């Protein structure tokens, strides 16, 4: 045989190419003399036909309403393989016929993998916040991870306001109120500080950050993270400090880290 066998991956790429592609020349030169690769190609072709048929049937079930869209409880169960076999079959059948749910599940799978990888705590908060903004209806499928991340953040002097809001988290007197007075107001706390953010109504790029130390402290190191981190030392007067940020919105704050000095 003059040319080498083609790998399955190469044959998949060959099938992806439109007919008559120039790049196909060397593959076809080999196919011409190799029954094994022709057999592999037919295998892939039949596999695709089988899955396509499965997809068409599933699509009919989705369109007729027999196969319901996946709930936010089903998605993590499926990804973590904690659902039973019947549930798994039901989910797979739906996914094969529903592009939207399929895309959503891949996105949840992606963020779960990211959270498992070796990211810093801050990066994890940013990634999960971005997911919550992009897929608000699927946010509760990550409720467990969101709550765990918030707890871990607080232990590390960080208050992840974006996650607190997305997962409706409340702890140690955390509060979300102020809608009645036209201001957005949120409060979260760590072991050493209570941190509030207030966005006055009608002033989009303006946020007031209030810091209250629980003990007698004179200074604190404050890190505000929007798309990037910005750190500074603030003086505490009567255990309090007010930071007025004119160039950012409350919505853009991923977390605020306040450390004792």
């Amino acid at each position, binding site marked *: 045989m003059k040319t080498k066998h083609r790998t*399955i*991956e190469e044959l*998949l*790429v*060959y*099938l*992806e190419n*439109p*007919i*008559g592609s*120039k790049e*196909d*020349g060397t593959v*076809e*030169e080999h*196919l*011409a*003399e190799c029954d094994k690769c*022709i057999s592999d*190609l*037919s*295998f*892939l*072709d*039949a*596999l*695709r*036909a*089988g*899955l*396509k*048929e*499965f*997809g068409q*049937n*599933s699509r009919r*079930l989705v369109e007729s309403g*027999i*196969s319901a869209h996946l709930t936010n409880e089903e998605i993590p169960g*499926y*990804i973590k*393989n904690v659902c039973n*076999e*019947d549930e*798994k*079959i*039901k989910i*797979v*059948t739906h*996914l*094969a016929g529903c592009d939207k749910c*399929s*895309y959503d*599940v*891949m*996105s949840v*799978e*992606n963020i779960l*993998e*990211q959270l498992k990888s070796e990211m810093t705590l801050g990066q994890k908060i940013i990634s999960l916040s971005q997911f919550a903004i992009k897929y608000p209806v699927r946010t509760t499928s990550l409720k467990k991870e969101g709550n765990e991340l918030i707890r871990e953040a607080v232990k590390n002097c960080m208050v992840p306001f974006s996650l607190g809001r997305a997962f409706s988290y409340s702890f140690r007197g955390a509060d979300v109120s102020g809608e009645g007075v036209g201001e957005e107001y949120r409060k979260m706390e760590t072991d050493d500080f209570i941190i509030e953010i207030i966005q006055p109504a009608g002033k989009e790029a303006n946020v007031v950050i209030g810091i209250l130390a629980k003990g007698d402290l004179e200074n604190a190191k404050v890190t505000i993270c929007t798309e990037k981190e910005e750190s500074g030392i603030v003086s505490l007067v009567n255990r309090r400090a007010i930071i007025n940020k004119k160039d950012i919105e409350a919505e853009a704050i991923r977390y605020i880290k306040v450390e004792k000095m």
Partner: protein
Amino acid sequence: MDNNELIELQKIIKKGGAGTELATRQFCEGIKDTIKRMLSSISYKYSQEYLEWGTNEAFLAFRDNWDPEKGKYFKVYLWRYVKERVRTAIAKDKGRELSIDVSLGNDDDEETSTIKDIVESNELSPEDTYKISELSQILTNTFNGMDSRTQLIMIAYFTNNSTSREIGQNLGVVHTTVMRNLNERGIKPLRKKIVVFFEDQDLKYDEDVVLNALCNFLTERGIKDENET
């Protein structure tokens, strides 16, 4: 020219009428390079006459035999079936006693297929039907046992025609990782089960059984289970 465009062309050609000639021209233009490569692969000297011959054979197969409903890419169909027709036709032209009805096996073996049989025969014996059903079930179980990421890749790639790059973007990985996962965790386990199926029953590997089982797996079970719910 991709498979979907070919499907549309075939519809126009089968329907007949005003658009047929243009569709035929588009088809011939689209496959010209592939036919040239096919002719050179048969190792016969290239000539315009053979190119026309090959194109004609491809066209007849395209119009009369290729069934996109069965899911086959026309590209594979060309290399698996049409090439044999062209090779045989050219061989005949060179004075050999071959036709599309000629036996593909030994001359004294009455059971072997002809090219015509390969292209047109769809008959299955009850024994083969049983094997297909058994293998189909094994493949379904294998697929159901795969992890969610592999299933998602298989579905997106084969069912939704997503490319490996698109899938990679959604899963946050590079396209080569998608292809590797698809092969290592999706395709290889299925192939392994197929080999074991034949070995366990001391049967000879039967490609027709495999291809039929692949074309049917998952489907029946999915519908049945959903209707029961």
